């Protein structure tokens, strides 16, 4: 844990150095430390899987899995295609019904709680969601306020403020009235994230939030995610494909393989050549990222490069 905190504050210093216009760096760093302290204090798990078996049709993708997600942390699920990382995220988000076992939200079964009450505490961003044509960014983000609305309290000034702030926080103010379908891939992804932000749930489940984005936009999304974690104490659980980015922006990595967890811990603990070999069948070296010191994955030389093809 200490190693992670050290490496992330290094990351912050570097970002500030690279971007001299960043005026809020000091405050950001302070809240960042507070967030780090929160994570180390013994809080009850915000999400917990107990004996969870889940999958599609008859075959479970994950078998008898136990996992606790601590409050105020950024956790990333990693694993090869089809290992069940999205499946696990869906089970945590009560989108997929477990075949056996259960998911607890703040200690009580998530599937028995009223859907709307759960939505005030837990937000989900599925993989590549699609908005119907004619939906503006504002339309989309306003939907995130649904769990806070009711017959008695249909749509308040607070809802409008929160939606606007979510749009501003994702840098979409200029395009707030444009059709989501007309936006670039990066803007569209941020519009969906804005919906989740507007939901003001303490816990965010993000399924591959960086898919289809170029590296700069991937970083935008991950920085936003970490800012939500540091400034608002949000608990974030996400699925990512890029191992190095996952290492850089997560407190904890959980590697899934063959229906269960094969490695679980800080990025430094988890990302080892042995784990990469087991989970991905990947021969790779792990070197410190020259910018942040987080583990970085460099695949070994291709075999055919050594000899004649």
């Amino acid at each position, binding site marked *: 844990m200490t190693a992670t905190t050290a490496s992330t504050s290094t990351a912050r210093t570097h970002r500030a150095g690279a971007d001299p*216009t*960043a*005026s*809020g760096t000091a*405050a950001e760093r302070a809240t960042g430390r507070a967030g780090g302290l929160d994570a180390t204090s013994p809080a009850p798990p915000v999400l917990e899987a107990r004996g969870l078996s889940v999958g599609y049709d008859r075959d479970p993708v994950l078998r008898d899995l136990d996992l606790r997600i601590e409050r105020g942390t950024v956790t990333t699920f990693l694993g090869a295609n089809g290992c069940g990382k999205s499946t696990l995220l*869906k089970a945590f*988000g*009560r*989108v997929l019904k477990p075949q056996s076992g259960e998911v607890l939200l703040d200690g009580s079964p998530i599937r028995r709680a009223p*859907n*709307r*009450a*759960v*939505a005030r505490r*837990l*937000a*989900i*961003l*599925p993989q590549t*969601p*699609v*908005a*119907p*044509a*004619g*939906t503006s960014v*504002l*339309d*989309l983000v*306003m*939907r*995130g*306020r*649904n*769990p806070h*609305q009711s017959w008695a309290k*249909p*749509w*308040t000034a607070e*809802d*409008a*403020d929160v*939606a*606007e*702030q979510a*749009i*501003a*926080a*994702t*840098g*979409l*103010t*200029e395009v*707030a*009235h444009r059709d989501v379908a007309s936006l670039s891939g990066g803007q569209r992804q941020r519009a969906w994230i804005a*919906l*989740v932000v507007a*939901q003001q749930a303490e816990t965010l489940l993000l399924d591959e939030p960086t898919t289809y984005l170029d590296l700069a936009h991937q970083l935008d999304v991950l920085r936003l995610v970490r*800012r939500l974690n540091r*400034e608002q104490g949000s608990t974030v659980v996400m699925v990512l494909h890029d191992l190095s980015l996952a290492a850089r922006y997560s407190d904890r990595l959980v590697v899934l393989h063959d229906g269960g967890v094969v490695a679980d811990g800080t990025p430094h603990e988890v990302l080892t050549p042995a784990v990469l070999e087991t989970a991905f069948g990947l021969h790779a070296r792990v070197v410190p990222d020259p910018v942040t010191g987080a583990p970085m994955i460099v695949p070994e030389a291709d075999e055919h490069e050594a000899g004649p093809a």
Partner: protein
Amino acid sequence: MSAATDTERRAGRPDADGPGARGTDRPAAGRRGVRFGPVGLAWRPRVLGWTVGAVVVALALVVLGVAVGSNWIAPGVVVRALLGTEGGPDGFIVTTLRLPRVLTGALVGLVLGVAGALTQTVTRNPLGTPDIIGVTSGASVGAVAAIVVGGGTYSVSAVVLSGGIPVAATIGALVAAVAVYGLGWRGGVQSYRLVLVGIGVSATLDAVTSYLLVRAKITVATAASQWLVGSLSSTSWSTVWPLLLVAAVGVPIALATSAALGIGQLGDEVATGVGLGVQRHRLLVLALAVVLTAAAVAAAGPIGFVAFVVPQVALRLAGTNRPPLLLAGALGTVLVLGADLLARSAFPWQVPVGIVTTVVGAPYLIWLLVRHRKEMSR
């Protein structure tokens, strides 16, 4: 990009989020959100304008529809008769003979338009009309069976007047819809499964209808075919009342689901994520659409294309992300009444209204699609 990042940074810090820090376009966006909100799709100026326009045209068509007939009754007289201040033969013709037909047409258009908007939104598919969930095919089997069976014992017109056909059609519609929903169930109902199962069940039921028609006597088969096209010619006040009741209860419930419809169309996972009970919502909306459609089909037969075309026209006129329910309902009334007027006056013989709605509605939809694609590519 740098401007966006700048805004982002400022908005991220609450202390810098003063009024001066906000972009010039922001307050407008916020104010609109406050005043209208996601529930108020119908209150957006463009939607409201078209809805009011469609309602005015619909009311004009009610008056015109009553005025036109074997003898012309001046619209002034029609309005007085509708208000109950006109006695005499014209008053009798208006209130007893012509009004039931026009009101049936207006209500059939209303409920079909609303039902089509509901099913197309909830299945996220423009082909997801009420016909798809088996309602029309089920109703057709029921009605044709009643005509064929009844035709053997009584005269066809006696069966029509006795109200046996509407009851048989309603039962057929409800049974078929339950069958489609049940066969589509697989730990919950997915929209695309519903559409696929619906197509299969409809084809099967249509085969049953064809079999009944082939086995029937020629006079009976002709009567059944007329019913299958959709017609307002055999309507009376006893047709109007059940339809009015269903519309009066069903349309407000449909409007109450409006906010949930907007959330449901984001897909099951997102909708669940923001707290919508997806399966319950889908069952409610489909059940509502089935009841509305069954009432319309029982009253006037399966009038073609209204539930399919009207919501798509409403969607394109309104420029929204789903068909506004009231606009779809009002346009349904305009289409059915306009088609009935055309059917009664433009031809030397009586044409069933269902043929006109199809002939008028389908090309209009094609034109809209072509124009839409041109706009998109420009």
